[in-house]
């Protein structure tokens, strides 16, 4: 069975002045349904380019991008637009583009209405998604009036309202405080558990909590942390830096 998303030998170059700069070189990645993968990368390391290529918004110079067995790097604009309206959801810029005066409910309903659903039905489904992402409190507020953390939740609701198979989000939690970040990551983890393949980027390790796979852009390539298969995936003891602990999920620890 093929992966939900596969990047195969992807290379991307940009012209910078008279020079040509290679941003990604021979990058490969397989993402399965239900994977929650985070790419750690700093500014200018190519993470946005990587996600835009993975989402089919940019074409690589070399290599292929397969989504559900189909090569989207060579697909027509029409095919890719259809995928973006239904199966591939993207939050590629944290600042959600908003129509002046548009409410949260209308904003989240838009993808459904654009897909042909009626207003009442769209708003019903959108309201449920808004509730799920914890944005019920400001469902009637204007999106332009929301704080960053609230916009992140609304962006997530809009991205997921049509039940995508793949969710791609760039730096979605980087500017959130630790509590909000943890909540949004928990939401993403929830979607992954339902089978959505999730690929996000984060500037630091705190933005990767809850992910099932951890990758890093290094130079122009992608490296991945080996998956711990042994007992409980417990953090390693690290004398001198860490205080070893045992995570107790049975409630003995107080939670």
């Amino acid at each position, binding site marked *: 069975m093929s992966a939900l998303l596969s990047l195969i030998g992807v290379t991307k170059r940009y012209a910078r002045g008279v020079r040509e700069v290679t941003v990604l070189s021979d990058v490969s990645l397989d993402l399965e349904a239900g994977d929650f993968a985070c790419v750690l990368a700093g500014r200018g390391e190519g993470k946005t380019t990587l996600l835009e290529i993975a989402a089919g918004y940019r074409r690589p110079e070399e290599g292929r991008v397969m989504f559900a067995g189909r090569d989207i790097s060579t697909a027509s604009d029409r095919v890719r637009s259809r995928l973006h309206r239904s199966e591939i959801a993207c939050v590629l810029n944290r600042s959600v583009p908003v129509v002046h005066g548009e409410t949260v409910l209308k904003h989240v309903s838009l993808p459904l209405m654009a897909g042909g659903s009626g207003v009442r039905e769209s708003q019903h489904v959108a309201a449920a998604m808004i509730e799920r992402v914890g944005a019920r409190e400001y469902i009637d507020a204007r999106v332009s009036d929301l704080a960053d953390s609230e916009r992140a939740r609304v962006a997530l609701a809009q991205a997921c309202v049509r039940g995508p198979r793949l969710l791609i989000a760039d730096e979605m939690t980087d500017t959130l405080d630790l509590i909000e970040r943890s909540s949004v990551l*928990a939401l993403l983890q929830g979607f992954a558990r339902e089978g959505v393949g999730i690929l996000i980027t984060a500037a630091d*390790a705190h933005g990767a909590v809850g992910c099932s796979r951890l990758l890093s852009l290094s130079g122009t390539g992608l490296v991945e942390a*080996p998956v711990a298969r042994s007992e409980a995936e417990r953090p390693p003891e*690290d004398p001198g830096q860490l205080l070893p602990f045992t995570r107790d999920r049975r409630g003995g620890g107080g939670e």
Partner: protein
Amino acid sequence: MPVKHAVLGLIAERRGYGYELSQRLSERLGPRLAVPEATVHSSIKTLKTAGHIEVVRRSFRGEQAAIWYEATEGGLEEYEAWLDEPVMREPVRREVYLKFAMIDATRVPRLLEQFQRLELECLAAIAAHTRARPLADELTDPVTLQTAARLLNESGALDHLNADLMFVKRTLGVLRWAESEGSVPRDKLLEAVS
């Protein structure tokens, strides 16, 4: 910080004496890793006892004597072996710094390999933490003090790991330039250290 091998490396580069070696080491390591002169003298003594260096000359400036040392064949082998030893992630701020400070063009590929391995190690350690750490929806409100302490400790550990990974990645960037170009463009270095 065990500086014995760094001192041996300096002597392997060219002969030297206590004070002079201490000055050269300070230049390599910078103020953050300042090594007292007494430590250099102690390293010299250890290296001499082990047969890694030998006295080749004594000179005098006024009343003060300077004893010059050179590396023996065994000393050169010991130094090469130390450079080849894999470095552990935990002392990223210690031995890796030493090895990096001793760098010359011929050692770039070996150091690059070691830092690539360190990068994977850092990533694996971060992954072990991020997978095990509970998210907001897994915590009761309020949380117990024990849980709060545990999460704060984990958060601090993640900060350390994050800093390690960033250092390793920046170093890798510089090493890659050094490998392909033989030098490091000033802008790239400033980008890495700023």
